[in-house]
């Protein structure tokens, strides 16, 4: 299967999030991904990267966030890895509960899961990796 891979290691600085978004966008452009869906994938990627910076690496600029954008014929797979201790996905508060609706944070994973087709987490002693996948329909790619 044809595969293109783009990699970026960035410091854990939230002021670099836009740069990371542009990296993902550029990688998707090279894959000739449908522009209508591209922005949603970029937004989903920024959710994973923001979590890695803030919750995984606790904003420590010496800790890296590794981003890999993998383009296959039928899907985009993005890996975001931090150096943190991980979290329990099932322990996250439901941002849709009335008591949480006015909160300023806690919606990242919800958005991520809504915009992508598949989301998985890999917790290891060296850090947490989130893997997000979006399938591409035949009509949406020129490859």
């Amino acid at each position: 299967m044809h595969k293109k891979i783009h990699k970026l290691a960035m410091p854990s600085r939230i002021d670099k999030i836009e740069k990371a978004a542009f990296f993902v966008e550029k990688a998707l452009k090279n894959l000739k991904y449908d522009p209508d869906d591209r922005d949603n994938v970029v937004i989903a990627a920024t959710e994973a990267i923001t979590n890695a910076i803030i919750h995984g690496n606790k904003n420590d600029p010496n800790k890296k966030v590794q981003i890999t954008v993998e383009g296959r014929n039928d899907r985009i797979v993005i890996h975001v890895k931090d150096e943190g201790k991980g979290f329990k996905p099932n322990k996250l508060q439901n941002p849709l509960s009335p008591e949480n609706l006015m909160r300023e944070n806690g919606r990242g994973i919800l958005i991520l899961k809504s915009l992508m087709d598949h989301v998985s987490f890999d917790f290891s002693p060296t850090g947490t990796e989130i893997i997000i996948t979006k399938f591409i329909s035949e009509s949406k790619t020129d490859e």
Partner: protein
Amino acid sequence: MQIKEEIRGNVAVLFLKGNLMGGPEGMKVHEKIKSLLTDKLKNIVIDLSKVKWMNSSGLGILMACLTSVQKAGGNLKISGTTDKIKNLFMITKLITIFETYENVDRAVARFQTDQTN
């Protein structure tokens, strides 16, 4: 993130251009709102029509703005919600919290209607 301010009657409109994704750039929007409230401008519209990417951090900034405006006894409306941004409001159910309008004119007109009723 560029912020352009325009005063229309007793309504302050902030036109945002760029990406609303957290960090110091996004905080500028909340600072701007607080400065309007200090100047007793409590009817505010934030226009998102020129915002390319917004994520949950951006939504968090809008929530912070809304809370500040409501605490000051004012009202905040959102305009220029593209399909992409509307989708985020739907996913997060914030569509039930924010008043959203197709464009600035409609949001400002709504303020005027609110005042005459």
